[in-house]
């Protein structure tokens, strides 16, 4: 008697829309009247967008030069040959001459491109210590284990900045010279090397350790530079805002690339006479050739490029949009035909029933 002697209706479930699964709901249906127009509209919109993207990408001017120095391709081959099999390679310089017959519209950006360089290799990518790079003094002395084998120098000193990424810092340098008149003197084109890194990287992610007695060098005392570096990190630049961990080139390099072929911004040309672009004339790029890539089949390129609203030259998106748009419309037509034909058939079936 104990188990049934409860009040009448005590077990009655609640009559709510939720418990009775009667929640009001919108029940969309993918009918032909939605699907077919959807395909056509998407197709048209994509073709429109694709055309815009394609033309804006096409409008971008790019000038690139491979200065890796594979046999006889450029005058850097001497440097390449000299550096063959020597580590570190001896300092060497070479040049790239080119001429512009018309204005290279600005602002012009100077990139270097590396190929077959696996910055996205996992072991390479983790070989860094973000705590050290954010200026934590403890991490400066105790680099993370991920940095190995560039964690500590042969003498046992902690390496700052530690890790393979920092050790492999790109160290070719470029300067651009412009010859206004034929046979005239070459004038150096000012390269704006400031603010080439992300604002957040420069201000947030990368920070120097706190200065000791107002000196960055003292702050880094007791650390060793990465083995490949000719000079310690606090001497990367004379500019106190651009040295140590917050050196712009270093910060750009430390933002590892997603793909084995990548470009990194070297400088912007936007000062003086060159704010509107590179005027016509002959140019020379002086290259100090230090960085070895030929050992693993890599290539080094220099690129001058300008930029549109949707970034650098890359026709991919435009073409992809055009192709997808065209496909949409084609498939839409095919579906329309199928629909009309089968619609009749099913109607007939229904009549038969």
């Amino acid at each position, binding site marked *: 008697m104990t188990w049934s002697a409860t009040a009448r209706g005590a077990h009655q*479930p609640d009559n709510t829309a939720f418990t009775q699964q009667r*929640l009001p709901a919108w029940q969309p249906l993918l009918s032909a009247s939605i699907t077919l127009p959807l395909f056509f509209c998407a197709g048209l919109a994509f073709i429109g967008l694709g055309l815009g993207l394609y033309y804006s990408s096409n409008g971008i001017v790019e000038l690139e030069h491979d200065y890796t120095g594979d046999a006889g391709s450029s005058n850097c081959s001497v440097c390449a040959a000299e550096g063959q099999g020597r580590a570190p390679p001896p300092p060497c310089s070479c040049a790239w001459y080119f001429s512009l017959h018309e204005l290279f519209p600005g602002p012009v950006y100077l990139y270097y491109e590396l190929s077959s360089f696996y910055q996205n290799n996992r072991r390479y990518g983790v070989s860094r210590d973000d705590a050290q790079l954010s200026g934590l003094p403890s991490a400066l002395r105790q680099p993370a284990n991920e940095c190995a084998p560039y964690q500590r120098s042969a003498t046992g000193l902690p390496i700052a900045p530690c890790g393979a990424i920092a050790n492999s810092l790109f160290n070719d340098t470029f300067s651009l010279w412009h010859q206004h008149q034929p046979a005239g003197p070459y004038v150096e084109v000012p390269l704006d090397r400031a603010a080439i890194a992300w604002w957040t990287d420069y201000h947030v992610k990368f920070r120097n350790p706190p200065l000791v007695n107002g000196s960055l060098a003292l702050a880094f005392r007791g650390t060793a530079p990465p083995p490949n570096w000719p000079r310690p990190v606090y001497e990367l630049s004379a500019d106190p805002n651009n040295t140590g961990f917050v050196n712009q080139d270093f910060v750009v390099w430390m933002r590892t690339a997603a*793909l*084995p072929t990548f470009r990194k911004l070297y400088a912007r040309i936007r000062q003086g006479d060159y704010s509107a672009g590179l005027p016509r004339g002959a140019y020379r790029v002086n290259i100090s050739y230090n960085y070895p890539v030929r050992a693993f*089949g890599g290539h080094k390129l220099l690129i001058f*490029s300008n930029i549109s609203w949707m*970034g650098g030259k890359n026709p991919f998106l435009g073409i992809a949009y055009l192709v997808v748009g065209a496909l949409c419309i084609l498939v839409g037509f095919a579906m329309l035909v199928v629909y009309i034909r089968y619609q009749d058939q099913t109607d007939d079936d229904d009549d038969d029933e």
Partner: protein
Amino acid sequence: NNTIKTSKYNAFNFLPLNLFEQFQRLANAYFLILLFLQLIPQISSLPWYTTVIPLVVVLSITGVKDAIDDMKRHQNDNQVNNRSVLRLVKGRMEEDKWMNVQVGDIIKLENDQPVTVSTLGCGFFLVAWVGTRDSDSASAAVLVKQAITCTSDMKDNLDLLSAFDGEVSCELPNNKLHRFTGILSYKGKDYFLDHDKLLLRGCVIRNTDWCYGLVIYTGPDTKLMQNSGKYTFKQTHVDRLMNILVLWIFLFLIVMCLMLAIGHGIWENKIGYYFQIFLPWENYVSSSFVSSLFIFWSYFIVLNTMVPISLYVSVELIRLGNSYYINWDQKMFYAPKNTPAQARTTTLNEELGQVKYVFSDKTGTLTQNIMIFHKCSINGTLYGDVIDKTGEKVAVSEKDKIDFAYNKLADPKFSFYDKTLVEAVTKGDPWVHLFFLSLSLCHTVMSEEKVEGELVYQAQSPDEGALVTAARNFGFVFRSRTSETITVVEMGETRVYQLLAILDFNNVRKRMSVIVRTPENRVMLFCKGADTIICELLHPACISLCDVTLEHLDDFASEGLRTLMVAYRELDNKFFRTWSVKHGEACLSLDNREKKLSIVYEEVEKDLMLLGATAIEDKLQDGVPETVMTLSKAKIKIWVLTGDKQETAVNIAYSCNIFEDEMDEVFTVKGKDSETVRQELRKARSKMKPDSLLDSDPVNIFLAKKHKALFTMPEEVPNGSYGLVINGYSLAHALEGDVELELLRVACMCKGVICCRMTPLQKAQVVELVKRYKKVVTLAIGDGANDVSMIKAAHIGVGISGQEGMQAMLNSDFAFSQFYYLQRLILVHGRWSYNRMCKFLSYFFYKNFAFTLVHFWYAFFNGFSAQTVYDNWFITCYNLIYTSLPVLGMSLFDQDVNDTWSLCFPELYEPGQLNLYFNKKEFMKCLIHGIYSSLVLFFIPMGAVYNSERSDGKEISDYQSFSLIVQTSLIWVVTTQIALKITYWTVISHFFIWGSLGIYFCLLFLLYSDGLCQMFPNVFQFPGVARNTLNQPQMWLSIVLIVVLCMLPVIGYQFLKPLFWPVSVDKILKRIHYCMKHPLPPPIRPRRRRPGLRRSAYAFSHQHGFGALITSGKTVKSKALKKNSFPAKK
């Protein structure tokens, strides 16, 4: 002691025990192993938290669920353990808690009190009617238990009871409900104890004011606990499929890892070796081969998300939610008994959407086990139809009910509509009087009158109860009986008849008689029985009456009523005396007593005068015929497995639409040996499908090829609609050897199958047979203990709750109180659960493929270095936060059509039976779709950022921006994908879907925020990426392109699929959507009358009656004693 412990944990051992149990699951163990792999620095490609956080969440969700379940069990245990009981302590009865009862205690049980120990009936009780919860047969819910004579003499003398020093030796605790052997040694004598003397835990004492008992088994030793202890774990087909698929995925994972490891070896050889100027090999790596060994494991870790960690826990949550819907369903709540439907097993929901065979019990499931006196034929006049002036039958309504107010002893619940019968009674028609007198005398019903004038009848078979109640209402009230007398109030006048003999019922005789001496000193024999038997015993004088009555009987039978003929004979004193002597001798004879008795009976049961016939309606449960029709429209086959007789079972089969009159033929198999049975089955098959006997029949070829091994019987199509009736005796032969295949082939071609006179074990065997050879889902529904075996054997067991017996319910997976709820359970809840589960699985696998396979493509561009595409935090949160709610929302709320349409168009159920919505083929589609999506997800962003810059010339092709683009696109793709899958957008779905997207972006800004990254620079390595990349047009252009590229094929496929590969369901759905837009009045289904003739059925329980018990005189003592004890108490 008697403490019951069903709970598994306590506060201290919960954590270790629960964790131990959870890690026994393969999936959890896999992730634990993965965790250890991740802790090895040489191969760790993902930080530890990417696995630990999801694992902890999954473990804790399951842990909380287990804890709640266990808490409920604790509560139940406490409730049971703290019930009070009267215990004999030092010569006094003391109230105590059940849990303190110990073996050897003497306890007192009172009327309507449940028993929670196995007690030996002891002390007094003579006729204890024990309504058992574990009733043996549904038709006899009341069992008679008797104490042994030596103890019953002690009555309620506490001194004697306290001094009782007998010794009981009995068998060890076991789970056999109907067997008990033991010996009581008391005062130097041994008494044999059997299960009749034992009160089992779970019984309720009825019709007994009190009894004393000796406790024999307590707590876990009781038969009930021994029975309920072992729960056979049921796995659904989807579960099994899921395990296979997870295994496939695992193999796929290994293959991918192998490929990538080989790729890595080649890469290290060609490029990595030379790249060492910038990235030297680790000192433990001596060659590219060693390196690729490590990479294999690294990729094993990276690609682990292929095996979805949250799959199992999500599946459990979904099933739990869908089970709650069943518990909550108001339309499955039975108000009169206050019983809601109950999903007792929360892991079988989607199986409900795939049922192909329903095995149903009859009594208590299809029928209410309530008999109603519906019609009668007295002396050639038919009573019971309400006929208007023109002679047409009129439908009866409640207000036409006859008022029996003139009879104070009438049962108010009895209803009858034909006034002419009452008029005949009041006019004093002698035949009508004699008819009802015979009904009030010829039975074995016991009456109980606690309050003056309120009679309660205890009948062994409900038919008898109905007849006696009818007589009572028409003025012939059976008031009480002793072993020698029957007191009847005849039209207000009390008359005592002397009971001379009861010629009890048995299955061969199919009749029972009583011989009474009337107050006028006439000796009368009243007999009732099956028409076929009675007709042969009639006096030749009433042949014409017999013909008229038989016509009426045909009428009754055609309405599905159960009929009996009633006759009488007046005996002269001398004849009776000589017969009585013979009877006495036969009774006392030791050998062949049964046979001798029946010969003696036959001597007196002849030359009977026909009085008339009764027609009793075996009341069907509400809505049974409609439900059966709906289920058969859903192509569900219904087999009735009953312990009842063939006639009754077939009768019920017709009245609830399992058999139809339009059927081409109903085969009856009644062979007595296996060869006859086989011949009968083959004959049936040759009619249903003549060419199936040829050797060229594909099924025969199939069977000839494979023998003995397990195989799936192919589906066969008969040339018409047939039914099969087979009884338990023939079935025993049919289940032997290879006859079972013959049986299966015949039975599965039939529209309806009736198996009668089945033992509980045979019920299970039939279910097993279908389960073994047909790869279909079976469902068994029943209410009694005799159905337990089939409920346990079937894939899904359904118990009818709210009945006296709870055994079926306790062993069932789902329980509700009305048969017609079955259609809602299967067609609505089952279908929804199945559809939801399938949608869930296909989406879940898809989203993990799309997520994980991107790593695979990326490997080709990063030197196969186990570099992940995504941020570690994204990997951690993807399954757990970003995509969990929408998919849960979909699988808890989605419905393609609402419940009304589901029931209107049972054809919608078919895809579940054929398992169309999720199978290996669908899985392959998911895989291909996932591969396609991952390709798009990787190559579009790659093309978009390749050698590209932002509009300010700065970096966009860096690793972190690329990660962001891919993962944001992925979130958009999987979200739009689920948006396409959802057909039922509730507020909650909107909230979950858009909320998840919102959460993604919020978390993105949080995880990539300056503050967090400055605090933990090595944990949050992506500062500023969100800010720098989310405002780039390339990013959004890529996302739009990716989403469209991933969606349009799906939309196109969905659009073209019903055109190219139309399934019947598509058409129905189309019609439903049309109807939803243009509301039509719901079609009124005409209730078809069932014309035609069928043989009649006789209404008797198929057990021996209580005749012997009544005449043994033991009830007298009981009555006398009751009268003695009551005043004393007052």
